[in-house]
């Protein structure tokens, strides 16, 4: 503290509005500069003169009048507060409110369990997709199979998949399952009916419509439908999560999920749309490397 600062702070010193440290600093300066000490002395004298003034006292009648008002107001506050508490007490102890609370808690627990189950289902589905993709990758990497091994596989796998293998053997380009299913359906409708006579006998010995038309049986078709539906659901599931990941800014995570969705091969239209959307997001975030990756994936679909 300088001498000038000390002069401006005389009032703080006299009225005791300084910290211990400031007081020490001020007193050191005051001892070196008598004009500051004189100023402090005068102010102290003025203060002691003012302190001789007796403190005026509020008359008792005013105090009593004020207390009467205060008691009235306090009663009012008390009643209002008590009223609220009584109401709360009644509410909480009423059977209707208690039942409502039980229902709300039960609902809450139920929703929680469902959400948990849903989350577990998600994890299971993801694991299944992972496994499926791994199996597909493995089968793509395998060398061309011999007719014998194909025949062996045919006996082990469902009809829809055996058709895939047949197509492979005949070097016919493989069509997506959904397209093939549409063709099959139209074939059933448009197939010319053969005129056949059947011997009278047991019903089981009659050939079915499918057997006659050379189409797969109803059970084989339903299995193929189920697989197609499942694959579509899996792809949609991956797309949904990939989209969320991209929106949340996890571009790499989104990209990985898109790769998996593309590996499943369905449905390409939705994939194109969401990949373009992801490219926009990556561009806006300035992630050129990821943009290139997304474009590559888009090309893969084409």
């Amino acid at each position, binding site marked *: 503290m300088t001498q000038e600062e000390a002069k401006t702070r005389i*009032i*703080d010193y006299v009225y005791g509005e300084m910290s211990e440290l400031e007081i020490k600093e001020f007193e050191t300066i005051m001892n070196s500069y008598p004009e500051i000490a004189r100023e402090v002395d005068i102010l102290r004298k003025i203060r002691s003169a003012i302190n001789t*003034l007796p403190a005026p006292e*509020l008359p008792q009648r005013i105090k009593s009048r004020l207390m009467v008002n*205060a008691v009235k107001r306090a009663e009012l*506050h008390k009643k209002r507060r008590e009223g609220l508490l009584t109401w709360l007490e009644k509410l909480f102890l009423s059977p209707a409110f208690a039942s409502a609370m039980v229902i709300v808690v039960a609902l809450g627990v139920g929703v929680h369990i469902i959400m948990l189950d849903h989350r577990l289902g998600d994890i299971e589905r993801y694991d299944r997709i992972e496994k499926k993709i791994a199996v597909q990758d493995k089968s793509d990497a395998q060398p061309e199979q011999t007719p014998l091994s194909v025949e062996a596989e045919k006996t082990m796998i469902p009809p829809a998949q055996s058709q895939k293998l047949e197509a492979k053997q005949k070097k016919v380009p493989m069509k997506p399952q959904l397209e093939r299913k549409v063709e099959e359906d139209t074939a059933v409708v448009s197939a010319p009916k053969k005129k056949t006579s059947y011997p009278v006998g047991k019903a089981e010995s009659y050939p079915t419509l499918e057997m006659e038309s050379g189409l797969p049986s109803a059970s084989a078709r339903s299995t193929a439908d189920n697989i197609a539906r499942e694959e579509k659901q899996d792809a949609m599931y991956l797309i949904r999560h990939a989209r969320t990941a991209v929106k949340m800014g996890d571009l790499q995570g989104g990209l990985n999920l898109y790769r998996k969705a593309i590996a499943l091969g369905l449905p390409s239209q939705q994939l194109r749309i969401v990949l373009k959307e992801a490219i926009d997001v990556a561009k806006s975030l300035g992630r050129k490397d990821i943009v290139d990756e997304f474009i590559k994936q888009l090309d893969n679909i084409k």
Partner: protein
Amino acid sequence: MIYVLVIFIAIFIKRKGFSSVSNSGTITDDQLYRLFAEGDAKAFGILLDRYGNKVFGYFFHYFGDNEIAEDLTQETFLRVITAATDFRGDCSFATFLFRIARNLCIDTVRARASRGVTSSLEDQVDDVRPLSEVIKGNSLEPDRKAFSDELQKAIENALGHLPDEQREVFILREIEGLRFREIADILGVNENTVKSRMNYALISLRKALMGFRP
């Protein structure tokens, strides 16, 4: 679990009956005011004991009129009673109280000015009774009492000639004992402005009391 807890708390508070001011010495002004807002009249009694004379002194030194000081003190505390449930604790109770008092001061000064009555002590200091006449049971010896009366009159005279803004700062700091920070809060001005006004007030008082020797 929570349900049962709420019921118990409600019953406990209701049976306990909100109050009480068992050890008033340790309870802060803010706590007392909140207790009053919850329905404890005793809490207000303690606040009145703590601040009644201070507020009365503030008005008395400001207007130099016992009657006005009584009316305004009563009005201030009535407003404090009414506003209890609205007090949010943004400032201390003292600041809150003196803000009300100061607003009443300003309103009174304006009302008096519009009626053509003098706005401060300035023009009526000569008619003001010495403070000792206002105070009950003043038992000073005759000589000392005479001197004290003279000194009081000189101080009151000097106070009456101070500009309003310096006088209110002086009263709040010197007579009511509020800190500069609190005064700045009440007046809504900078702390340095308050100190500067106080300095000017002290210089004026110093001049007025120059020839005074006991």
